[in-house]
């Protein structure tokens, strides 16, 4: 029997296309439009080709921000992933304590980003902040507004505080799905604690861990609000990450062309890295299945 071909069904996709066009494609196209035009004001634009892109690619300012961004993402992933797994492994499995843990750990995730920034901004202040003042009382020279290292440490601790529980919660869900028989079999087989982790827990967490790392990478690579509230990108430019730099450029200096070119490259970098990461991880999985 021949299949009936009816291309009219494509019209059913139209509403989605319209929605996506207005919510994503058209706004993106305006950015593309800015990125290839220049203006001297008065709302008069003229064609500029790929000059903005060329300028941005060779911009020292962008390179520096990108370097800081990569360093930041690498550091927080290196801390949050192992720490999150460790916490998940040690959380109570059931009962009142398990529920309490879950609630407490969800709390940081529910706080609005700028509030997180504000909390740490006050917490770290040397004059009135609990952390800053206490450190000062111990004679430790800590000041995140003056010292780039202090600023970095504060931002990293803030991010760890804010987001480690996301990884823990995801891993915890993965761990909960392991049937008891696996642990019993491991005891019968005299497996060490490390073997249990390596051969039972880690493989079962692999799926959620992939999602967790991907989410944390994307979020940390796009981070804006918390460091902006905490340090405003300073001292100097030491904590100016890509997003902060982009906003400075677009709204502070009103350099719409370069900012648009910057945005597009930024977007493509995140897309590329996420895609590479995802493909590598899933292929690894398939290779193991063989």
């Amino acid at each position, binding site marked *: 029997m021949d299949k009936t071909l009816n291309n009219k069904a494509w019209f059913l996709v139209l509403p989605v296309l319209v929605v996506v066009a207005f919510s994503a494609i058209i706004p993106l196209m305006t950015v593309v439009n800015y990125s290839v035009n220049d203006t001297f004001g008065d709302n008069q634009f003229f064609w500029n080709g790929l000059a903005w892109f060329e300028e941005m690619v060779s911009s020292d300012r962008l390179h520096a921000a990108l370097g800081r961004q990569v360093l930041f993402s690498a550091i927080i992933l290196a801390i949050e992933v192992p720490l999150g797994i460790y916490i998940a492994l040690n959380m109570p499995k059931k009962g009142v304590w398990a529920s309490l843990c879950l609630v407490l750990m969800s709390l940081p995730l529910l706080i609005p980003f700028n509030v997180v920034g504000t909390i740490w901004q006050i917490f770290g202040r040397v004059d009135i902040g609990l952390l800053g003042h206490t450190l000062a009382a111990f004679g430790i020279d800590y000041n995140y507004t003056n010292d780039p290292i202090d600023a970095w440490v504060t931002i990293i601790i803030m991010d760890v505080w804010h987001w480690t529980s996301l990884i823990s919660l995801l891993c915890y869900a993965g761990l909960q799905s392991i049937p008891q028989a696996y642990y019993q079999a491991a005891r019968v087989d005299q497996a060490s604690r490390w073997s249990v982790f390596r051969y039972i827990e880690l*493989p079962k967490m692999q799926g959620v861990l992939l999602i967790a790392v991907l989410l944390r990478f994307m979020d940390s690579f796009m981070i804006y609000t918390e460091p902006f509230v905490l340090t405003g990108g300073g001292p100097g430019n030491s904590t100016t990450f890509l997003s902060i730099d982009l906003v400075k450029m677009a709204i502070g200096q009103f350099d719409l062309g370069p900012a648009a070119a910057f945005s597009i490259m930024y977007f493509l970098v995140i897309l590329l890295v996420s895609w590479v990461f995802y493909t590598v991880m899933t292929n690894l999985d398939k290779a193991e299945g063989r």
Partner: protein
Amino acid sequence: MAKITLKTLAHSYNPAPKSESDFALKEMDHVWDDGGAYALLGSSGCGKTTLLNIISGLLRPSQGRVLFGETDVTDAETAQRNIAQVFQFPVVYDTMTVRENLAFPLRNRGMDAAYIKGRVGQIAAMIGMEAMLDKKARGLTADAKQKISLGRGMVREDVNAILFDEPLTVIDPHMKWELRTQLKQLHREFGHTMIYVTHDQTEALTFADKVVVMYDGRVVQMGTPEELFETPQHTFVGYFIGSPGMNLLPAEIHGNHAHVMGSTVPLGAAYGHVKGRTQIGIRPEYAVLTEGAGLPITIKRVEDVGRHRIIRGEVGGNTVNVIAPEGMAVDASLTHVTFTPDRINVYADDWRVAPERAA
């Protein structure tokens, strides 16, 4: 290898058990002889798995002791007990190859590489997975995975006992039979004590020398398949073993006769005074339909199962099943049923009463 003794053992999952019904395992004394092949039979939730986990040390009993030989191991860890256990659902280490899976228990005990290699080869041949040794366990089918679990259970030679917790549930019928035969063969070869938990009577009867029947947290009978069939010590055994199970009729016992609903049924032996709720039990194999002798029966259904026919009937509101031999005509003239006297067992409050003397 060692004899396993359970002394006044009981277990409750409730930390502060109040009544006997809180106990998943009621107090019991039991001995598993060294080198025996046992089947632990019972319906779901009767405490089979609990008992098994106590023996392997995955669970600490609320009371009583567990002895391996003369050593008290009640507080010993599973690893120290040197026991192998195979679970109901396949447990394999996904990221390892089949070979690594089989070698895992040996490696953890620090055996030398040459020995491991040889032993893994042997086991692989036994479970028929030599060709797949270098495959990852992850992609395998459920029954292949369960074969790996079985293999891992049997790979150690020096274990005190091998415990099987309904290991063939996920395996298809043909393979089931084959694996069971192999287990049996393995038992003959190495003489490990084996305890095989199942709720399938065929599996139990074909695997074991001795079948232990559990009911409601108790061991109600341990015996050979023949003993379980001929003299069930508890009505549950009568009902659970056999297909269909034993017929039970309320009766009053007077010496070598039983009074059942106004009729007299001769017994094969004489009984003294029997207290409690008394019943007689007769296997369908020993019931015969007649044209007038015995108890009146109402026939509800006749099922032809090929080799024989099962007649489902009622005697005064009690279900009575009769097995009619091949070739016997079943028609409306058969209105009564008689029982072979010396095959009748007498029960008081569900427990079998031993006769005082032969009739």
